């Protein structure tokens, strides 16, 4: 059977001012009709370049220099721009990462969808509009006939992505290329969009190429997967086989770096050392050799071909890992036993003095209008009555979707915002009651680690002055003492001492995050607030940073408040978790208890929506998850704020706000009228405070 799309030995180059990037080298792939192919890889691996090469939408300086791409028997790689115009949008549809920048803000969504129909089908305006309404309905847009005349800014992020999909589908393409379609979206929306793509694929019988950095995304969706590294396909096989029996050391290492695969912190994440090779001057031999655990001398001389011992499992490696040949009955990991053991540990109540106690914290942001008078027209309830505590040396993880108030909590504790109510008690002292001046003097006790370390460093300062600044502000030590301290902290985070003469932009993403950590630690803080410190990093680099954070916690006795949208990272790192929804803490307790035995429907839904790198589990979770989108925090729903999206909601939920009540002796608490299970022991409700 001829494949719908075949790519043979594709080579793409990007010419820069001073060098040429060999972005793709000998990429060969094929996609059958109606099939979903997942392409995974880290940034710079060439996965997006592959997608753009198919569409011939390469960035300036980009050229296909070799190979052949054929669609349905027709060679499209040699087509002229005019010829390609017929293919793009008509035979091949494409969805981009950020729906906001890919939609024209001055055109209604209906006109934008109709545009492709007008162009390719020669339909008249009326038919095109009818088609637009039809496809909007197809992608699950509520009331499509009304929405068709909306502008992109009137829609939420998830809805915009639906519009993008509608545009791609308007002409019923045979192939849909989705380039990181959900990376800019929240997990609950991500699940909905992925499900939609999957559903449409089955209904319309089109093939899908799903390009992503997230192994979890392809686990549940793709039939086959291709792993890319340094512009090459390093392994390709069926998704189930790839996850059960990875043969290339890079694929194996990627799995090892996933925090959800690690049972607990005692199990270190495998982090791939170093960084991907420079593609302007790629090294000879296997491109992964420099970072490979199993490297031998021959790997550095010749590059292995993409071949395998069974017909549908090919990899580029001389010394493959895993089991050769037939891989039936490959070992499943025994998660259940580990989980039971950990739950027993978690059942022990945790006592002791708290380092940080947050009591009934409230933060509202005013919404103002008018240029001069700035009348207050409303209030965003960012943090509403949140309480938790962290014992010294422990990690408290805060998870939630964007807009749930988790970052605001971090900023309140770090002193960047002033609370409207409640107390932040650190080491017995209420930080909210201090004067500005006094609060500044307490700054060394709490330090913040930013998501984007690069943005958090003055681009005009070298690393030395950047690390010295906190010491200078707090008047700590003489200049030579400061220098010693800087050298020591650079050693601590694994950066060479010569870094002090460099500018932040000269470092890679992972190195910058190390610098960010170094700056946060140089004042010897008791508490480090880490706001999404790894979410901008690739999996392998993420593992390096998480390991480093754990090592430093153990060595220096640090306490972390770890804020993230990624439940699996939070579970791996934290002792206790707090789940936030629209400014409220809805569930809190020991990490494993919350993760494996959630009480609140939202927590359950959140766990079910997180993509897991396990095809069987991903399929089991198919129909679960959180429906709908986050309501506005300006007028949060009455009663329980989650009720608008909750499958268990009843009338009581709208009338009465559920209090946070204990569900187990170990501090597991949740705010729900109709929890997923009843509290352990009736006495608990009265005994606990």
């Amino acid at each position, binding site marked *: 059977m001829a494949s719908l799309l075949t790519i043979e030995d594709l080579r793409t180059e990007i010419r820069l*001012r001073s060098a040429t990037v060999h972005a793709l080298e000998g990429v060969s792939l094929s996609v059958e009709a109606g099939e979903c192919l997942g392409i995974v890889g880290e940034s710079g691996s060439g996965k997006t370049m592959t997608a753009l090469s198919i569409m011939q939408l390469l960035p300036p300086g980009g050229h296909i220099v070799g190979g052949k791409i054929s669609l349905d028997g027709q060679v499209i790689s040699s087509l002229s721009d005019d010829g390609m115009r017929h293919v793009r949008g008509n035979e091949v549809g494409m969805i981009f990462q950020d729906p906001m920048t890919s939609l024209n803000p001055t055109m209604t969504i209906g006109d934008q969808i109709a545009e492709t129909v007008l162009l390719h089908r020669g339909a008249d305006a009326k038919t095109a509009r009818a088609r637009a309404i039809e496809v909007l309905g197809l992608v699950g847009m509520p009331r499509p006939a009304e929405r068709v005349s909306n502008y992109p800014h009137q829609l939420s992020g998830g809805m915009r992505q639906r519009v993008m999909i509608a545009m791609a589908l308007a002409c019923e393409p045979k192939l849909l290329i989705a380039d990181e379609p959900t990376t800019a979206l929240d997990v609950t929306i991500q699940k909905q969009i992925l499900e939609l793509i999957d559903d449409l694929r089955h209904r319309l019988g089109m093939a899908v190429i799903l390009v992503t950095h997230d192994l979890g995304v392809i686990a549940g969706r793709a039939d086959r997967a291709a792993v890319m590294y340094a512009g090459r396909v390093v392994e390709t096989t069926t998704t189930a086989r790839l996850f059960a029996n990875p043969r290339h050391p890079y694929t194996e290492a990627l799995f090892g770096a996933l925090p959800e695969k690690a049972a607990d912190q005692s199990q270190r994440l495998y982090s791939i*050392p170093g*960084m991907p090779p420079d593609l302007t001057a790629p090294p000879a031999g296997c491109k992964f050799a420099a970072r490979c655990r199993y490297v031998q001398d021959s790997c550095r001389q010749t590059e292995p071909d993409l071949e395998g011992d069974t017909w549908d499992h090919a990899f580029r490696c001389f010394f493959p890992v895993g089991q050769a040949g037939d891989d039936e009955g490959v070992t499943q990991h025994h998660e259940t036993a580990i989980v039971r053991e950990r739950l027993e540990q978690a059942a022990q109540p945790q006592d002791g003095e708290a380092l940080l106690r947050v009591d009934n914290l409230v933060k509202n942001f005013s919404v103002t209008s008018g240029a001069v008078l700035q009348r207050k027209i409303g209030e965003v309830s960012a943090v509403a009555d949140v309480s938790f505590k962290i014992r010294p040396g422990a990690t408290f993880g805060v998870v939630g979707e964007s807009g749930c108030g988790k970052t605001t909590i971090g900023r309140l504790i770090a*002193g960047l915002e002033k609370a409207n109510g409640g107390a932040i008690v650190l080491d017995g002292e209420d930080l909210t009651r201090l004067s500005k001046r006094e609060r500044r003097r307490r700054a060394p006790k709490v330090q913040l680690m930013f998501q984007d370390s690069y943005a958090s460093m003055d681009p005009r300062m070298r690393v030395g002055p950047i690390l010295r600044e906190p010491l200078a*502000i*707090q008047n700590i030590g003489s200049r030579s003492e400061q220098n010693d301290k800087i050298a020591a902290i650079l050693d601590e985070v694994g950066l060479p001492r010569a870094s002090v003469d460099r500018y932040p932009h000269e470092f890679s*993403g992972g190195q910058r995050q190390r610098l960010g950590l170094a700056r946060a630690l140089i004042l010897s803080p008791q508490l480090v607030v880490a706001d999404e410190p790894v979410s901008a990093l690739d999996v392998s680099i993420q593992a390096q940073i998480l390991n480093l954070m754990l090592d430093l916690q153990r060595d220096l006795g640090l306490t972390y408040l770890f804020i993230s949208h990624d439940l699996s990272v939070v579970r791996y790192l934290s002792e206790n978790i707090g789940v936030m929804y629209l400014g409220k803490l809805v569930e809190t307790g020991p990490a494993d208890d919350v993760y494996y035995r959630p009480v609140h429907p939202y927590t359950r839904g959140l766990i079910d929506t997180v993509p897991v790198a396990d095809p069987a589990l991903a399929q089991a979770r198919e129909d679960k998850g959180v429906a709908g989108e986050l309501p506005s925090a300006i007028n949060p729903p009455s009663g329980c704020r989650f009720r608008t999206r909750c499958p268990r909601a009843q009338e009581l939920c709208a009338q009465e706000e559920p209090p946070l009540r204990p569900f187990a002796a170990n501090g597991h608490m949740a705010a729900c009228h109709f929890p997923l299970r009843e509290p352990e022991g009736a006495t608990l409700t009265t005994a606990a405070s």
Partner: protein
Amino acid sequence: MSLAGGSPEPLPTDIKSGPMSDVGVAVVGYPEDADGAVAAGLLPAGKPRSTFRRGLEVFVENKLAVTGVCIFAFMILFCFIGPLVYHTNQLKVDFAHEELPPSGAHLLGTDASGFDVLGRLMSAGQISLEVGIAAALLATVVGVMWGAIAGYIGGFVDSFMMRIVDALLSIPTLFLALVVVSIITPSKPVLILVIALTSWLTTSRLVRGEALSLRTRDYVQAMKVMGGGGTRAVFRHIAPNAIGTIMVNATFQVADAIALIVALSYLGLGIRPPQQDWGGMLSNGVQYVYDGYWWLIIPAGFCIVIVIAAAIFIGEGLRDAVEVRLQRR
């Protein structure tokens, strides 16, 4: 743990550094060291260079900008050092030698009052350049202060200060200048004030925007978390990061100011005789356009065009040089 090649030495360093997010341009890795700790990777290759050096490199690469600097430097030498070498009479009217074509005695001929055109070009240039540069500096200083205060304080103060700017901006520049100049006799200081008065507005808007955005940058927030205050924010972070934009704007202001004083003089409202600037020379020369006295028009026009063009080239070169993104290539 396995040692890659058994060597903890860094891999070859002849590789360019680059941001990770870019198309595969990255730094080469580092094998696990003997302790099993993962080294964070190699330092970028090459000597560390200061922001100034990197900016200079980008600037020097821009041929037009370098040409602009050369022209500007030449014009300043020509106008201020030239008269010391090339002595001419620029005070006494000499009707015996009026409107002479270029010759050995008068390289660019003489004008209607018998002044040597080349010498006149030099003394007129002094006025144009002095007024232009001084007005641009004054406008920049006022504009930066106004904009920075509005942007940093924000809120009501910001709205109030910016509405004043909006109101003044609604008056056409040339019109305002004409009104002021027809009330007060124009002298050099008056002209400087008038031009500065009309051109600080755009600078203040620019700087206010810059301050507003710099104030919320993560690195200013990071400094606050360390316990730093407003003074440090303004002088250590906001000002140094805004200085590039300010410099670029000041350069364009010079071009604008020269153009404005030329326009005023051309309309006869510039500096009063016997002093004259390039605009005045042009205005006088245009009266003889049908007589074929090209030396009364072309030299002055040429000076005006190349000085303004040079300032704009320098400004564009500076804009590239202060753009950190371009430095990185």
